[in-house]
């Protein structure tokens, strides 16, 4: 039992641990998935940001390109004016210059967050205004272009070119840095993804491993249980066989003992009879001597023949008769134990009625009222054994009346699940509590010994009840009456069931 309890405790502990571990692993798995998702979102957002920045860089590049292009347009328009091609370029210069300044403003707007670019742009702006002034001046003057002004214009244009180059280079650098960051972000994403994947695989593998181990534990404990069950059945079978063997041995023992006891008893009885027979001629002789020669007769001889001898013979005889009855009782019990039980469907009301009818003479003589409950449940059992049980109990109820109280005996039966409870209640003299168990023992009786009997009936009834796979008990209040309750299986289950 102790090991069983320990096993139980261990099992419960293991189950609890299993539950906790699985929960932990599931939480871990979900956490991994959540982290992966969040990382993905973060990486995506950052990627969008990067893309926006790249786009921004391209816009800046385009606007810077526009600055350079429109500057070229401005220059070619001025050249066209200078070469008197006013009809096709005169109108283009203001367009180009407005585009030029618009592009500058656009770049200024785009690079508002970048002070270095802003500084360069403001230089370009200053240079642009200067160039614009120079161009317009050169176009207005038409012819007088000094080499000095020419050089100044060339310088300014080169500066704008250089500055825009610098700006482009700066933007490119920025873009490279940003792409690098983007690539790093993607790499991080992949790493996070891989780690999460590995984590998930680990969690899954761990879960599967734990579940498998748990299942194996479960199967092992089931196997153990099955084996234990088998063992239990084996143990019960073994015990039943032992009991049956012991029972058979007791019966055989009772049988042999009672037979071997009978043999010397035959001698005791026989020779007592011989003694008795011998006293007759002796007593005749004493009579004769008393008559003819009284002086020859001693008082001792006269008493021995007339009183001692017959008295002794009588005691020996009554004792041996009693012993014979006891031996016969044991013999009957042992025979009852060997009798084959033949179960059949029995109507308890009819059976009780027929049993009571066989005792009718005595019942009427004592004026006892015997009431048999109608419609008692049917039972599948041995007719003879059941008849003997009821007969013995009713006989006892009728026998041990309370003097001065009219006898009443009630026979009833109820079906409780698959057992039948037969009760035989009387209002007789009752049994003292200390005798409630004792009365079922062989040769034991209770109360005043004013009725004939050997103390065999109830022992016999109990043996029969056991034989039928049942039990018997008594409930009694002294001086108030007694109720004997026989608990029998509703359907006789065979020798094995009875023995178990």
């Amino acid at each position: 039992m102790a090991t069983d309890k320990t096993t139980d405790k261990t099992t419960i502990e293991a189950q609890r641990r299993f539950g906790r571990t699985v929960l932990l692993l599931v939480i871990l798995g979900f956490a991994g998935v959540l982290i992966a998702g969040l990382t993905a979102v973060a990486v995506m957002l950052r990627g969008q940001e990067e893309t926006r920045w790249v786009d921004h860089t391209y816009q800046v590049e385009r606007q810077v390109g526009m600055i350079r292009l429109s500057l070229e347009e401005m220059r070619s328009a001025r050249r066209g004016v200078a070469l008197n091609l006013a009809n096709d370029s005169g109108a283009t210069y203001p367009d180009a210059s407005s585009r030029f300044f618009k592009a500058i403003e656009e770049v200024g707007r785009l690079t508002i967050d970048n002070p270095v670019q802003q500084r360069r742009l403001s230089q370009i702006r200053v240079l642009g205004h200067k160039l614009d002034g120079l161009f317009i001046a050169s176009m207005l003057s038409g012819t007088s272009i000094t080499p000095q002004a020419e050089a100044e214009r060339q310088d300014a244009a080169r500066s704008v070119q250089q500055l825009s180059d610098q700006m482009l280079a700066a933007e490119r650098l920025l873009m490279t840095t940003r792409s690098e960051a983007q690539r790093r972000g993607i790499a991080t994403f992949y790493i996070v993804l891989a780690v999460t994947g590995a984590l998930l695989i680990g969690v899954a593998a761990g879960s599967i491993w734990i579940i498998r181990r748990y299942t194996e534990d479960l199967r092992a404990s089931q196997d153990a249980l099955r084996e234990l069950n088998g063992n239990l059945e084996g143990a019960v079978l073994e015990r039943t066989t032992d009991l049956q063997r012991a029972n058979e041995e007791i019966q055989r023992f009772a049988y042999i003992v009672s037979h071997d006891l009978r043999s010397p008893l035959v001698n005791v009885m026989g020779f007592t009879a011989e003694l008795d027979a011998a006293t007759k001629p002796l007593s005749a002789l004493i009579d004769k001597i008393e008559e003819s020669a009284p002086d020859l007769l001693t008082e001792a001889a006269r008493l021995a023949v007339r009183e001692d001898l017959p008295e002794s013979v009588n005691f020996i005889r009554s004792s041996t008769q009693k012993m014979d009855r006891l031996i016969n009782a044991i013999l009957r019990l042992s025979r009852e134990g060997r009798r084959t039980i033949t179960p059949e469907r029995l109507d308890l009301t009819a059976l009780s009625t027929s049993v009571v009818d066989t005792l009718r003479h005595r019942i009427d003589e004592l004026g006892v009222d015997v009431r048999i409950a109608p419609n008692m449940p049917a039972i599948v059992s041995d007719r003879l054994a059941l008849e003997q049980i009821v007969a013995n109990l009713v006989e006892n109820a009728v026998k041990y009346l309370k003097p001065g109280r009219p006898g009443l005996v009630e026979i009833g039966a109820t079906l409780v699940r698959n057992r039948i409870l037969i009760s035989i209640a009387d209002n007789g003299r009752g049994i003292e509590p200390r005798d409630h168990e004792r009365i079922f023992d062989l040769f034991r009786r209770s109360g005043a010994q004013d009725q004939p009997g050997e103390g065999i009936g109830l022992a016999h009834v109990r043996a029969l009840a056991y034989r039928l796979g049942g039990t018997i008990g008594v409930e009694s209040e002294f001086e108030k009456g007694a109720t004997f309750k026989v608990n029998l299986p509703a359907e006789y289950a065979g020798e094995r069931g009875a023995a178990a």
Partner: protein
Amino acid sequence: MNAHQSVNIVMIEDDEGHARLIEKNIRRAGISNDIHHFLDGTSALDYLYNSPDGPAHNGPALILLDLNLPDMSGTDILAKIKGEGPLKRTPVVVLTTTDDKIEIQRCYDLGCNVYITKPVNYESFADAIRQLGLFLSVIQVPGVPES
């Protein structure tokens, strides 16, 4: 059939008291035939089959048999007597304490002629023996077949 030969009574009984009581009652019944008493099966069988004045070689007999013997079962002796051999027609009276139905049936199956249970009540016991005495006085016992 040899009318001049008297019938020997062979009593196989291990309890001397029983034997004495049986003998007394037989005598009281007026039977004066010789009674040969044996306390065990071995010596009884030896007498029955081998002794020159035993029933197998000399004269008819009636056997009184107790079933509870120290050295062998009475039913074995019964089976041997009633089996093939010179004594198979010899009447056998089983006189024993056993009143088990199965045992009684078995004895009759083996060929026992009368089965008497020894009653503890001496009067009925004496009666039974006296009746046996009457029975003995009227029955014709087969002799040894002339060879």
